[in-house]
């Protein structure tokens, strides 16, 4: 097929298995009728079904929802993504604009989307070699050589992660605390303890990735699942700043700009 034929064909029809709205009649959601077959699902259940195409078990719905509750949404206005939302509130933008921007910002290199995606990818990449008996220390060293860091371990600002214990406690309640990937994640932490002068602890992204991997969630699906994971903490940030006097969220005075650039100069063009 030529390129023109390919585009001309695409122009006529989009084939899909994700579903569609049949106006005034029904909604098909991944092969099922949303209104009559999926109404029993929790919102997290529907989200997971939309992402994976598989109806999640009750246990999976509880797990993936609780991971969000326990570990990803802090009503902390100073965190960079939340601060965007707080700024939107203080200058009287809309909640949707602020929160959309906050969600987009959450896909950051040093926290959020990027390391979380890389964390599950790392587990999937080393597991086959680990299962075949390769030395975990060597595998970790190789990853550090290749990518400089181990995603899911270490944390900006502080070293330990207060969420690990709470997440593990819940995983234990669901009998998911001894999964193969969870064990691997903790084994990697032990390796990092020995490798580094300063202890590097697993952060919650490492544990979340392991729990998701134990459920067989693909890297791509996990990337989609975490996209909105910080959102619940953002709504209160907006509400807080929008309900206080306008433009008063940590205003900067002129002298708080620390200029380190060129000296004053005359325009000569």
């Amino acid at each position, binding site marked *: 097929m030529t*390129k023109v034929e390919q585009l001309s064909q695409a122009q006529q029809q989009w084939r899909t298995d994700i*579903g569609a709205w049949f106006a005034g009649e029904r909604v098909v959601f991944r092969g099922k009728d949303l209104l009559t077959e999926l109404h029993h699902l929790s919102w997290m259940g529907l989200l997971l079904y939309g992402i994976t195409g598989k109806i999640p078990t009750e246990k999976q719905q509880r797990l993936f929802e609780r991971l969000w509750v326990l570990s990803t949404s802090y009503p902390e206005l100073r965190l960079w993504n939340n601060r965007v939302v707080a700024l939107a509130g203080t200058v009287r933008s809309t909640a949707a604009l602020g929160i959309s921007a906050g969600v987009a910002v959450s896909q950051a290199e040093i926290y959020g989307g990027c390391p979380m995606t890389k964390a599950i990818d790392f587990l999937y990449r080393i597991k086959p070699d680990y299962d075949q008996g390769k030395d975990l220390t060597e595998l970790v060293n190789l990853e550090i050589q*290749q990518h400089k860091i181990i995603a899911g371990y270490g944390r900006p600002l502080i070293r330990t992660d207060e969420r690990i214990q709470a997440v593990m406690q819940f995983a234990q309640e669901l009998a998911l605390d001894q999964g193969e990937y969870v064990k691997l994640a903790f084994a990697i932490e032990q390796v990092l303890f020995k490798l580094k002068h300063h202890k590097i602890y697993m952060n919650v992204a490492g544990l979340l990735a392991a729990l998701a991997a134990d459920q067989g969630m693909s890297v791509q699906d996990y990337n989609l699942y975490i996209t909105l994971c910080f959102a619940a903490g953002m709504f209160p940030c907006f509400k807080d700043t929008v309900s206080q006097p306008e433009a008063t969220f940590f205003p900067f*005075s002129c002298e*708080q700009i620390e200029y380190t650039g060129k000296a004053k*100069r005359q325009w000569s*063009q």
Partner: protein
Amino acid sequence: MKLETIKTKIWQEHAQTKHPFMADSCYCSGYNVYQDILPNASWIEYLFLLFQLELPTAKQARLLEKLAIALANAGPRDYSVRAAMNGGVGGSSSAACLMAALGVGAGSVAGAREVLLAMQAWQHCGLSLALWQQYLSQPKSATQADVWPEAEHPMGFDPYANTCAQPVQQTLAVLVDCQVGEYLLCLQQQQGQLEQWAQCPLAMSGVAAAALSDLGFNPEQGEMLYLLLRLPGAAVHALEQRQLGWAQYPFFAGKIDVVNDPKRNQDEIND
């Protein structure tokens, strides 16, 4: 208590005597913005200064201005412009329209990521045809997953074109004529060879990447500028569709084929 500060090489302010939160004067890289830059500079000169902290030469300013014109509107068929129009037609806020254009225009198909990666290729290959051949003929796969989907075609080239589009050729010719740097000239002189290795004709993003590299921007600056310079078209098309309304805007009625529609499957069984 000592207040935290924002460090910057770009901007300096002096406060009013009796109001520390009101600026009396503002300086951009040493130039007084409202006293000197505003009456004297063109928008393009100021844009260049903001990014590079030095004023452009006349040739550089001309190149950036010509590039800005070439990129200002990709037209209503462009995916990022379409995103903005989807905002406009439903009456979404102006910010939402531009955010939609940025979100969609950020990708690696005619988007800012394509420019970033193509600029990284210029950094890596420079004027070496041997390196370009290797880069285009033997693309490297990623060694780990990323939030960005992996590029599916050579960056800066058009996977669906048969020949290089005339607007791309015209843009390249005008930009080369500005005589800044060596990358644009190399691109023009070696276009046929590069297209052969890429197995795709040159795209506008490829021209933009070479121009932005010639102007001395790094890939991250180039990515930002490309996002920014394409917004005018997104804005005006969004406004136009807001005015025209949804009834005159395509909805692709009857063009979605749901392969696993349970009702269709039921009907087929009944038939």
